[in-house]
């Protein structure tokens, strides 16, 4: 009788450990997914704040390149890039449309997390010719 009880307990413990391991696998996946979601949201928020800051600075600056460099962007050929330790990367591509009355400068700020593009924020400024 005593031996029978011992075997039952052993089998029960094995079943318990098995189910516990299975349920923990699922729970850990949920936790990992939640953490990944939180990280993406956090990086997106920080990158957006930085992009907004850049856009507002560009809106009031007369020299786009100097403004970008003062904000920490470095030249990568035609574009400018800022790599943040917070886990995102901002690239700025400048397009200029010059007309006799003034110049329309469009700076497209692309935010990346790894190779995934988070958003594109346009910063456009028109500067009319002040003298004839």
């Amino acid at each position, binding site marked *: 009788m005593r031996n029978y009880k011992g075997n039952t307990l052993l089998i029960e413990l094995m079943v318990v450990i098995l189910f516990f391991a299975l349920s923990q696998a699922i*729970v850990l996946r949920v936790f990992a997914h939640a953490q990944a979601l939180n990280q993406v949201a956090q990086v997106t928020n920080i990158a957006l704040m930085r992009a907004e800051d850049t856009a507002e600075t560009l809106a009031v600056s007369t020299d786009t390149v100097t403004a970008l460099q003062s904000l920490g962007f470095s030249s990568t050929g035609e574009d400018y890039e800022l790599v943040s330790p917070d886990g995102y990367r901002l690239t700025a591509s400048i397009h200029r449309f010059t007309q006799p*009355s003034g110049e329309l400068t469009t700076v497209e700020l692309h935010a990346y997390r790894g190779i995934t593009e988070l958003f594109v924020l346009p910063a*456009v*400024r028109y500067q009319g010719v002040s003298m004839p």
Partner: protein
Amino acid sequence: MNTKAEYRIGVGASTILMILVVLALAALSLLSFSSARSNAALSERNLTMTLSYYQATAQAQQKLAMMDALLADHATDAIDTNSIISLFVEHGLQDITLSENMTFTFQIDAGAGRTLRVEGTLTPVSYPRYTVTRHELTSQTLPDEQPLNVYQP
């Protein structure tokens, strides 16, 4: 008489313990996931609203550039309010309203029930040809799907 108490794990105790632990962890993980999803949704909404504002600002700057180019092209003409309005209509800028005192206004949809309103003064014969006096984001109505949940005791 010396009785020795014997403590043993009964059959079923480990099962009950496992069920409790698994339920607790499952509840915690679901709460964590729910919180993360809410954060992600809030972040996405913030991103959408910010981007739509900057897109509206970009459209406003493009409109100002078009308007300035038109005024520069016709700087030598005798320009009055009606001729400027017809000039705007002719070149697809009919959404710019111009009053008698040369005050121009236009509005651009900035998403989520918001409108970017740009107002300024035209001075076609001098430099600069226009001056922006107001550049504001107004929220007329709240979107139906996003009501404000204001706590009222």
